[in-house]
């Protein structure tokens, strides 16, 4: 059984590596964006392990992106150091946010994180001295903007998204998982078994934010121009939770499947329905929440068990 998994994963990764041969620039662009949102969705799913729902992952994403932008503007562009710094600063924000949130109920956390992302967006827009306000800033491309830039970016994003999935898998197989799951199910009972709930909630928050911050940094370099509406936008926070929801909450594969299914569905709808595609997209989401709340992976697991 295990060897089958290894085979499937190897095949999938191998197939992904070959994609630039088959795809045109536009399709490749969409795959890159999908992979970036996959990283964000995976990190959101890690936070969910401790029963904290974030509506503010756009905040971490934007912090990562703007850190990269600011570092490149003030100093030499030092890729990939600035991307890592972006992740670390996002994680620092998460520690502060985690300390505030760790005693709250899950719904209050959702509202606080939503406010966090919105406040950051408004701050950047209203105070031009921070980062040129609503005009946005230019970020130099990672590989110098030469002809193969897009393909190189694709491999970088693929590598980082595989790293994030490995990280999610490592958490699942480590001691952390037991603490996360215990805190998720019952904080009081977890405490009685020696688990410090606050500590693990904050760990989950910062790991999740770090990954999202890194994704934001890569996005900034790839698009090479960022403005507050894009990187702090609500759509990033929403995608981050809709993708695991459709794919399967609490699973590692869930965000992967969710991100690819939703992006391809979105593209297909755009072709057939034109500007009304968001309505069809919304209907699909509602259908998933109502009829398949355990997601595609959860549904497949249930079928397999029968």
């Amino acid at each position, binding site marked *: 059984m295990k060897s089958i998994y290894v085979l499937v994963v190897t095949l999938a990764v191998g197939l992904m590596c070959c994609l630039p041969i088959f795809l045109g620039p536009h399709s490749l662009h969409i795959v890159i964006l999908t992979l970036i949102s996959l990283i964000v969705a995976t990190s959101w799913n890690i936070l969910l392990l401790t029963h904290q729902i974030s509506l503010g992952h756009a905040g971490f994403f934007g912090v990562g992106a703007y850190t990269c932008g600011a570092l490149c503007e003030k100093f030499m562009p030092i890729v990939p150091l600035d991307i890592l710094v972006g992740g670390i600063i996002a994680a620092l924000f998460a520690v502060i946010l985690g300390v505030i949130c760790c005693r709250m109920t899950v719904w209050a956390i959702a509202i606080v994180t939503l406010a966090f992302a919105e406040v950051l967006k408004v701050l950047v827009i209203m105070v031009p001295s921070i980062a040129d306000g609503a005009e946005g800033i230019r970020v130099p491309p990672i590989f110098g903007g030469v002809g193969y830039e897009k393909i190189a970016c694709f491999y970088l994003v693929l590598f980082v998204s595989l790293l994030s999935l490995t990280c999610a898998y490592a958490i699942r197989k*480590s*001691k952390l998982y*037991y*603490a996360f*799951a*215990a805190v*998720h*199910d*019952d904080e*009081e*009972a*977890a*405490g*009685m*078994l*020696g*688990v*410090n*709930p606050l500590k693990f909630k904050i760990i989950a928050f910062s790991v999740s934010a770090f990954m999202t911050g890194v994704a934001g940094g890569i996005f900034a370099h790839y698009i090479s121009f960022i403005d507050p509406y894009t990187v702090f936008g609500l759509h990033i926070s929403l995608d981050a939770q809709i993708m695991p929801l459709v794919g399967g909450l*609490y699973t590692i594969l869930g965000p992967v499947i969710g991100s690819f299914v939703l992006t391809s569905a979105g593209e297909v709808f755009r072709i057939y329905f034109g500007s009304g595609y968001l309505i069809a997209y919304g209907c699909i989401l509602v259908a998933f929440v109502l009829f398949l709340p355990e997601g595609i992976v959860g549904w497949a697991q249930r079928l397999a068990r029968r």
Partner: protein
Amino acid sequence: MPLLQVKDVYMKFGGVMAIAGVSFDIHEGEILALIGPNGSGKTTMFNLICGVFSPYSGHILFRDCQITGLKPYQICRKGIGRTFQIAKPFPKMTVLENVMVGSIYGKKNSYPLKKAREMAMSVIHSMGMEQKWDTPVTELTLPYKKRLELCKAIATEPHMLLLDEVMGGLNPSEVEEMIKLLKRIQSNGVTLLFVEHLMRAVMGLAERMVVLNHGAKIAEGSPVEVVEDLQVIEAYLGKENQFVKG
């Protein structure tokens, strides 16, 4: 030297005095029952010892070391395990994984995963749950849920176990088995403090009893002494001739 000393502890919820000046000691290796009518403060007392609440005044000492004001996870690592009145398993995990949470995090230095798994497995065996080790906890019946609570607490390798109504809802033969289990746990050197309504279990197990009523200690002593204590009878059954006079 007593293992646990409760010294003149008070606890208030708003204007209600839930625990009013309770003191008692527990000695190494003994089985002490904490009894009292509904609402007398037994579970509150447990929560004070475990660090869920911190007392309004007074001290709790464990092995001569102040534990008042510590958080539950710190108290757990000092060697006090606890089961809940209403079993609180982690529903997303199997029996083994539930017990492993205790065996990984229950001690000062957390075990590596492999050792924690072996240790959890041996606890599950010793509690007679080896057939259920891979069952999702939502599929367990009540007696097994109660045993799982015990397994989780024991996996933290406690010196003392606080048991909150582990017999509640069990039928007579299951109660007998549970009594045997608890005696075996005690013979391994674990001190037991338990809250129980089922008098048969209390009389069969307890070496000493502390009786609470309205948050105050009204009696302490061997089971035989306590059941003959007038104040205790009054607390449970009301004053004699109350109805005649009333």
